[in-house]
């Protein structure tokens, strides 16, 4: 067994795929950044990310997949599901070994598992486009905190850039400790220390625009006014708006006063 250790980036993983073919490794497992202590008897292979190797793998995949299928692999990578690198590798092997496009061979379990991961990421990216709640600071920055299961920031960047072209905004993923920031021109990736206890009344008055709390309350007022009590269906409510997102959604956070 060979443990392939890469830097955790998509390019790193692609480089790893190239080297697995190059060195004809059999029976592989992937590890991010450091070797897993559980695998006592595995040989370790350290991958140094190499853009030209990564591009050659990408080129091979691009030739054999539709653009949707091609992007699907990247989205699967962002899903962070258990053993996703191995699923991606098995899928890649199948794609590269076939002369025709196999992405719709849904009877094949590697195709199916990859698709499931892709869908998970896509679904959560869509949800984050919906559930992000911006707060306005005193210096006119709209900021939002999110905590998704999948690493969706790279996928939602262009959506927010197009939509909020005339306001500065920041969306910060506390789980992965990085954010995307739009400065009215470009979107850049940033890392910073963020105070997550940002829902307290003090915090709101300290850093937020004077109208911010009022708008939050208006939104809460709206949210409760549109509910029809005689149609109440909490199961459906939670199915659409899972509880794990609530702690960052204004309408689900009680008023601070």
């Amino acid at each position, binding site marked *: 067994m060979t443990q392939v250790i890469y830097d955790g980036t998509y390019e790193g993983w692609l480089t790893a795929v190239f080297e697995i073919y190059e060195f004809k490794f059999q029976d592989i497992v992937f590890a991010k950044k450091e070797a897993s202590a559980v695998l006592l008897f595995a040989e370790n292979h350290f991958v140094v990310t190499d853009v030209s190797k990564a591009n050659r793998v990408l080129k091979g995949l691009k030739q054999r997949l539709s653009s949707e299928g091609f992007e699907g692999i990247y989205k699967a990578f962002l899903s962070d599901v258990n053993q996703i690198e191995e699923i991606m590798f098995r899928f890649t092997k199948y794609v590269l070994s076939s002369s025709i496009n196999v992405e719709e061979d*849904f*009877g094949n379990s590697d195709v199916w598992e990859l698709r499931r991961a892709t869908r998970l990421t896509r679904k959560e990216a869509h949800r984050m486009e919906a559930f992000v*709640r911006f707060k306005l600071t005193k210096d006119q920055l709209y900021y939002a905190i999110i905590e998704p299961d999948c690493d969706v920031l790279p996928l939602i960047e262009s959506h927010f850039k197009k939509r909020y*072209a005339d306001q500065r905004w920041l969306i910060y993923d506390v789980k992965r400790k990085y954010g995307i920031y739009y400065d009215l021109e470009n979107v850049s990736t940033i890392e910073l220390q963020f105070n997550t206890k940002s829902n307290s009344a003090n915090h709101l008055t300290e850093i937020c625009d004077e109208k911010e709390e009022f708008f939050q309350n208006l939104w809460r*007022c*709206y949210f409760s006014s549109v509910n029809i009590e*005689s149609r109440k269906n909490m199961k459906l*409510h939670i199915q659409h708006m899972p509880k794990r997102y609530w702690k960052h959604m204004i309408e689900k956070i009680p008023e601070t006063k």
Partner: protein
Amino acid sequence: MVNERVMEKLGILADAAKYDVSCSSALSKRENKDKGLGNAKGYGICHAFTEDGRCVSLLKILLTNHCIFDCAYCVSRKSNDVKRAAFTVQEVVDLTIGFYRRNYIEGLFLSSGIFDNADYTMERLVRIAKKLRLEENFNGYIHLKAIPGASDELLKQAGIYADRLSVNVEMPTEQSLKLLAPDKNHKDVIKPMEYLKNEIAGYKEEKKLNYKAPLFAPAGQSTQMVIGATKESDLEILGMADYFYQQMNMKRVYYSGYVPISYDNRLPAIGTPVPIIRENRLYQADWLIRYYGFNVNEIVGLNQPNLDLDIDPKLGWALHNLNQFPVDINTADLELIKRIPGIGYLSAKKIVAARQFKKLFPEDLRKLGIAYSRAKYFLAFATPFQMQKDLTSIQIKDQILNLQKSKYKNDFSNQLALFN
């Protein structure tokens, strides 16, 4: 601009607008221009869900709940003793922008009680949309209610600034409308619909010649019917819907299960349950007509004017048409596969794609996410599918109902719920 008084108005005017069920924010391609605010996407985004499970994608409010009409089914009717309020044009603009910038909403759904007269009301709705577009450079979604009786000129203005327009037909038949809304008649509703249909068609023609032609209600028009307030059958309701889809090119017809709000003896009493299952069945039937190639008469007919409440309309159709089955999913046309209960539109497409690679087995179908336990009664007898015994439609129905843990099961139980 937005002050404390607005909070109270918002409570009143959002509450009064909530019975309008339209919430879609899809189908408009209004792109952000000149670094403005907003970008209406081709697909809708539900930003939140109410505790009753409905999508919140638009700020849905009335401009005012003052109304000169006295429609029995409406909370804002003249004779109802409720608190009245009215927004100013600027307040609606500020609320929309404030909410949109915080990513609470996709845009604005603006309706109104009729105050003074139709044109006076419509003119204000248009002024809000115009201000949002021209002064705020807002490219989010705007849905305006077209007020019956408003002049063509105002409707045209509305179409220029809004993404979608709707006139609610309210009642499926003229008799019920006369009974519950003596001030209204179907003709007043059909007239603006027809005008909008023609304008929208004209815009589409122009667009073909000149892709820069200014937008006119790019997301089309929709309407809504209240169901369960009066005695219409599903045949009448779906027939009316079909008329709107065929003759008016409607994008959507919404069905709103009547929520009892009044002691008026023309209407179901307060405490009568909202016909949620029936509403759901109507939406399912509506989908079958729009996306699955079914004809209205295949789903409801004179011999069976109402949809089954205990099973969905596709299963209902299949049980009445067992002679069309079994279907061999390894060879059948897509259109036929779509008609198999338990197999949805997307799954049918996946089946057709996947079978090019290999013959599909039952476990492949399960993997594709198909409700196999339901579909199996309608699948080909040839291998690899197991032989199903020759069952009658009643036997199949019983087996499927027993299999599924229907969320509505309690509603159909013959046993009395003793401990409720």
